[in-house]
């Protein structure tokens, strides 16, 4: 299945991309996706240790990283926001 991941702020800058599409196995959960991302780029180990960073799947913040992903999901990795 195919998922989309969006990157913002310093993560976007350090990865030098604002989004990417990944082909992953069906029934991959988010915990497993984290391992794939870390193996691709070690920056992700830093990102996933940072408590200030929030994970959104389909515009909803997730707390439980065991959540199963689905084809077409839009993930987003969000550093602390500074709007207004």
């Amino acid at each position, binding site marked *: 299945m195919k998922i989309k991941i*969006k990157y*913002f*702020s*310093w993560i*976007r800058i350090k990865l030098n991309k604002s989004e990417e599409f990944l082909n992953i196995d069906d029934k991959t959960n988010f915990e497993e996706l984290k391992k794939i991302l870390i193996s691709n780029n070690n920056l992700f180990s830093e990102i996933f240790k940072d408590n*200030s960073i929030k994970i*959104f799947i389909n*515009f909803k913040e997730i707390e439980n990283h065991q959540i199963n992903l689905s084809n077409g999901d839009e993930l*987003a990795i*969000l*550093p*602390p*926001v*500074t*709007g*207004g």
Partner: protein
Amino acid sequence: MIKILKKNFSIDEYYEKIKSNENGAISFFLGTVRQDLFDNETNKIESIFLECYRDLAIKQLEQIRKEALKTWKLNNCLIIHREGSINIGEKIVLVMTSSSHREDSIRSNEFIIDRLKVEAAFWKFKILKNQSKIIEQKEKDIEKSLKWSDIVNEE
């Protein structure tokens, strides 16, 4: 009404959208780009850049608006937020709340800007000569947002 705009806008234009014979009190909060320092005591920023996760930000602003409408007696509530490149002195955000009595418009307006600052998917950068620098989130803004938790009807 929630709007995310690329261009500067007029206050009167949006005031017209909430104008009503039921309103006795309308509160506005306007955030603008301050002539801030870039990296030391001499270099001043030229502009800011506002990155935005548009689809999420709209949902988050709608959620904040809904909570305000549930907690206070409001006639209407508008949130206008810019994205992209914004010059010094230009408008970044406008929050308008209208009600019969001022207590409701004033309190809800402060709630919205406090929440928006730490909850909506926008990221600010200072810009000087093609260099950009992230503006960090402030601890004080998190505290201000948290103080509303006992007051507001969250979902």
